[in-house]
Structure formats: structure tokens, C-alpha cells
């Protein structure tokens, strides 16, 4: 009899039940989409944010001390300290090696041009091919770390295709002042030698870099007599936003307890990645570029907060919709409910029928909503991040619980109304 009554109610109120199912499906779909995107989006947003450039810089320890003491960069004393080029590959052997997206070494010196101007000559990797100690291979360099450079003339220097060891890229200001462009030659002279640079590209960085010349590492090392040495390394790493533990560890890792240390070390905080880089690069200090790291963390947190907010709002909206529809359904059936009470049905029995109807409808709505929501997630993934969103199994129980909770919460006013219905009043049309 119970199921006959449930079936009868579904058949009789199929329009209203469909509306309730759609309302639940809407809330469930948004919750599914947001939760799937949120759980998958951390890495994707981090990848997107890598276009802002490196978020860690590595410098020699003595240079870092001077920087910290006098808040200056460079200087003769600082120039005397170097990192070792042969240790670069070790960066990709740290615990969080897979989170190291790109890195580029730098050596810089000053050079004189024929015009008498003095410029900063920077040696680096552009798209350097690296065979790692682990047997893996990696192509990395400034081409990935300076994505915002606007190549106004010529092309990016392709280390792997370019046969001329003197190929270089020059900043837009230098190019304008010296009157050179792509394909021209620019003569530079340092304390240790001179070279005719072949300009393959002119870049506009919108910063002091426009006053600089970027050339292959080997060439600048030769011109500055620093074979095998570097002045700095820029690293782009995928990181987890800092929390209290990360902040505490950044100040002094030795202050952590063993378990805190393990948690910190095994989490991709920017500070733990810096710490691990320092472990493999001799006499180095790795420090986060705070503006970038903080922005990434803040953007990630805000994006996740926004998604949680959308999820909550969609569920609240869904709950209000359910509330209206279920209340309308109970009002429409007040005669029937009054009759059942009059012939001896307990409040709990009638509430059981109504809740069973709503929960069954909710399950149908949630299943529809889950699949529609997963479709929404794919649309968001492809539109915003250009890739698919992975289906997270943990979203299913979360959405199921949220849907049931919202459905039951939305039914509370209707159930209260149902309990207040007095058979004498409804059966006499009052």
C-alpha cells in the first residue's frame, strides 16, 4: 500500500515532481561542476600562473647575505660568488622534482659596445636540452620563463636549431639606440674578450631587461672568464599556498617538530621546495619571489573560495526552490493529507510518504545533476584551462550527501506545515 501511494503521488504530481527533480538537478550539477573543477583546478591554475615567470630565485650564499644586509643587488663582491653549472641538473632530483616546471641559469657581466655604451650582457639558456642524472630529458630556459617578452623583430633564439654560437637576443632599447635589428651583427667587448653577436631577435620586455643583451651561456661565460659558473638560477615551480606551518618553517625549519617537518617537507610549499633546492645546490640560497608566490597562492585561494561560494549559493538556491515546490505540493494535497490523518494515519507515517517521494525525486535529480555537472566541468575545463577536468570519485558521495541534506532541509517547512494540518479544518475546506 505504501508503494502504491508513492507511485500514485508520482503519477498524479508528475509535473511538480519533475520540477523538483530539475531544481535538485540544477543544484547538484553546479555543485558537481564546481567541486570537480575545484579539486582538479589547483594544478591547472598553477600552470596558468607559471606564465607570470619564475617564483624562486637561487643565488650564491654570500651574494644573498650582502643582498640581505645592504639591500643591494650585484656589486663587485657579489659578483665574486658563483653557483656551479654542473649541479643544475640536480634541481630535478629533489623530492618535489615533478613540481619544477622550468628553470634557467644566468651569468652576467658588463660589455662595451662600439658606440661606447656599456650594457649588461646576460648569458642564459633559451631552450636548452638537458639530460638529467635520473636519465630523463628536459628542455628548459628563458623561452618558458619570459613568455611576456614581445618579440618585435626576428624570432626567439632556438638553441637547439641555431648553429651560430654567437647568436643573441637584444632588448628593444639597445636595438633602438644602436640601430640594429634581427640579422644584424653587434660587436661587444669585455675585460676577457670580445665577440660579434648575431642578432636573431629583438624583444620588448617593458622593463630594465630592454637595456640588456641575452646570449648563450657558454659565450658569456667565456667573455667573463667564468666557465662552469653561474650568478643565479630562476626556477618556476608548482606550489601549494602557504599556511601557518609553511610560514613557521620558512623562518626556521629547525624549529619544527619531527612530524611537522615531515609534513612540511612532503608538501609543495614554496619554502620546502626552496629548502630542497638549497640541499642540492652547493652554497646557495633559494628564496621565493614573494610577489609571484603570494599572488599565486592568493589567486588559487580566491578561485577556490569563489567555487565554494558558487556551490553553496547554488545549493541554497536549490533548497529554496525545493522548499517552495514541496510546500506547494503539500498545500495541493492538504485534503488528502487531512483525510489520511482523519482515518488514523500518524504524522510520522504521512511525513514518511512525503519524504520518501521527495528523496526518490532527489535521487533522480542528483543523478541527472551529477552527469550534467560533469559536462559543465568539461566545458569550464576546455574553455578556461584548455584541458579536460578529471572525474573525482570523492565528488560523488559529497554531492550525494549535499543533495540529500539540501532536499531534506528544503522539505522542513513543508513537513512542519503538514504536521500542523488539522483534519477537521482541511476536510471542511477551512
Amino acid at each position, binding site marked *: *500500500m505504501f508503494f502504491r*501511494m508513492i507511485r500514485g503521488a508520482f503519477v498524479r504530481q508528475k509535473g511538480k515532481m519533475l520540477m523538483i527533480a530539475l531544481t535538485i538537478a540544477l543544484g547538484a550539477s553546479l555543485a558537481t561542476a564546481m567541486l570537480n573543477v575545484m579539486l582538479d583546478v589547483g594544478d591547472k591554475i598553477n600552470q596558468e600562473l607559471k606564465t607570470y615567470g619564475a617564483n624562486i630565485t637561487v643565488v650564491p650564499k654570500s651574494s644573498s647575505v650582502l643582498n640581505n644586509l645592504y639591500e643591494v643587488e650585484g656589486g663587485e663582491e657579489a659578483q665574486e660568488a658563483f653557483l656551479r653549472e654542473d649541479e643544475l641538473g640536480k634541481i630535478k632530483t629533489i623530492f618535489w622534482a615533478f613540481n619544477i616546471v622550468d628553470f634557467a641559469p644566468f651569468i652576467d657581466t658588463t660589455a662595451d659596445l662600439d658606440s661606447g655604451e656599456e650594457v649588461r650582457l646576460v648569458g642564459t639558456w633559451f631552450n636548452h636540452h638537458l639530460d638529467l642524472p635520473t636519465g630523463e630529458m628536459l628542455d628548459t630556459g628563458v623561452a618558458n620563463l619570459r613568455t611576456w617578452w614581445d618579440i618585435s623583430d626576428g624570432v626567439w633564439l632556438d638553441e637547439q636549431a641555431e648553429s651560430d654560437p654567437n647568436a643573441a637576443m637584444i632588448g628593444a632599447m639597445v636595438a633602438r639606440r644602436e640601430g640594429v635589428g634581427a640579422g644584424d651583427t653587434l660587436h661587444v667587448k669585455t675585460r676577457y674578450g670580445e665577440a660579434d653577436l648575431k642578432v636573431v631577435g629583438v624583444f620588448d620586455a617593458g622593463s630594465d631587461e630592454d637595456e640588456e643583451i641575452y646570449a648563450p651561456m657558454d659565450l658569456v661565460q667565456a667573455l667573463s672568464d667564468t666557465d662552469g659558473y653561474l650568478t643565479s638560477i630562476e626556477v618556476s615551480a608548482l606550489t601549494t599556498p602557504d599556511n601557518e606551518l609553511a610560514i613557521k618553517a620558512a623562518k626556521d625549519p629547525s624549529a619544527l617538530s619531527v612530524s611537522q617537518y615531515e609534513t612540511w617537507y612532503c608538501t609543495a610549499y614554496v619554502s620546502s621546495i626552496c629548502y630542497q633546492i638549497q640541499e642540492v645546490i652547493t652554497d646557495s640560497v633559494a628564496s621565493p619571489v614573494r610577489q609571484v608566490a603570494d599572488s599565486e597562492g592568493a589567486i588559487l585561494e580566491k578561485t577556490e573560495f569563489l567555487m565554494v561560494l558558487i556551490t553553496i549559493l547554488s545549493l541554497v538556491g536549490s533548497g529554496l526552490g525545493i522548499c517552495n515546490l514541496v510546500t506547494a505540493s503539500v498545500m495541493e494535497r492538504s485534503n488528502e493529507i487531512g483525510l489520511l490523518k*482523519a482515518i488514523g494515519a500518524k504524522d510520522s507515517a504521512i511525513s514518511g510518504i512525503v519524504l520518501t517521494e521527495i528523496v526518490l525525486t532527489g535521487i533522480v535529480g542528483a543523478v541527472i545533476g551529477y552527469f550534467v555537472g560533469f559536462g559543465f566541468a568539461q566545458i569550464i575545463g576546455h574553455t578556461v584551462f584548455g584541458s579536460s577536468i578529471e572525474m573525482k570519485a570523492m565528488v560523488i558521495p559529497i554531492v550525494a550527501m549535499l543533495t540529500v541534506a539540501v532536499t531534506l532541509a528544503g522539505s522542513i517547512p513543508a513537513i512542519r506545515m503538514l504536521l500542523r494540518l488539522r483534519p*477537521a479544518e482541511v476536510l471542511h475546506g477551512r
Partner: protein
Amino acid sequence: MSLLELKSISKIYGDLHALDNVSLKVEKGEWVAIMGPSGSGKSTMMNIIGCMDKPTSGQVLLDGVDISKESDRNLTAIRRDKIGLIFQQFHLVNYLTALENVMVAQYYHSVPDEAEAMEALRRVGLADRAKHLPSQLSGGEQQRVCIARALINYPELILADEPTGNLDEANENIVLEIFRQLHAEGTTLVVVTHDPEVGEVAQRTVVLEYGKITREIHNESFEAKTAPALAEARN
């Protein structure tokens, strides 16, 4: 001991005395009609007797038990176990068949029994309409389903509110004939009506005016009319 006894009951809504110090006894097996014009307190009295409302003051004794102070939960149980309700508007569940409408009362009382429900429908002459929905039944047929539902749990008291109010004469006669049979079998009937013809066929008529019982009429021809039928039914 009377089956039902109202002792000085009043029902007051603000300044309105819907029932004013009313006392009434209904014996087991008696057929009582409660009559009166609109606003006389008939429905209020029916709701109180039917355990769907409580009096403001006074006592309601059903089978010797005072139910006037019972909780809503207990009143529901009393209604389910002891009272069969028949309504003017029939009040059938419109997505259930005639048979299922009868079985609903069994479901909330004990256990649905299709054969027993079918027998109740047969008793009111609707065995062949058991699988029909209320929308496929005439008003008279719907009222007979309502009567079958009221009878299915063998209540001590049948309480009917304007049972013929929505019926034509032919169906009114059918319903009254069923009431005669029920009375002949010893069922206690309380029928609320404003129809004099329905009032006249009862054993006793109680007239309500302005919330007070103003008259009680014993139908003298009742025994003469019903005695043969009563004897036949009891044999």
C-alpha cells in the same frame, strides 16, 4: 453504560460559543441524527465526537473513557480504532482505486486485506467497481466507497457528516438503506444533517440551535418501520 456521552461541553472561539454547555448520550446500537441550521454547531459537535477537535470545557466519554483531554496522537489512535468517518465530500484519494481507498483505512489500522476490502465493497453494492478510480465513479458510488472505508475496521461508532448532502434522491435512498442495514446489525450511527428526510429516518433526532440542544425528537414510527427488518437482519 452509554457508548458516547457528552457532559456539558462547550467550544468557544473568541466571543463565539459554537457549542454552549451541551450534554448528550448515545447508546450502543442507537441511530441518532443531529440536525440544525447552518452555524448551529453541528460540524463542531461532529469534530469533537470524531476526535478531530477538543472541547474548550466539559467531558467527552467514549466507551466510558474521557477523551476530552487526550493528546492529538492518542486521538488519532482512538479515531483509527473506534470511529468510522463518512464525509459529505466523500474525500477519496483520487489516484487510488475504490478497492485501494478501502484498503488505505486497513493499512493505517492494521494490515491491508484485499479480500476483506472487496467484501466491504460488495456489501455496499460496488464489487464490480472495485478497480475504478474515484473519477470514474458517480457521486453515489463514491459515497458508498466512503461508507465501505468507514466500515472496514469494524468501528464502534459510525459518524456521518451530511452523508447525502451531495447526492440525488436515488442515491440518497441507497445510502439510507445501507444505514438501515448497519443499524439493524447493531452498528451505532451518529448522522449530522440538515436534511429533515434524513433526520426522520433516525431513531432519535437532536436539534441544535445557536450551540445548544433545543429539542430531542424520538421517532415513534422508527420501531414500527424497522422492527421487521431488524428482526430479519438479526436472524
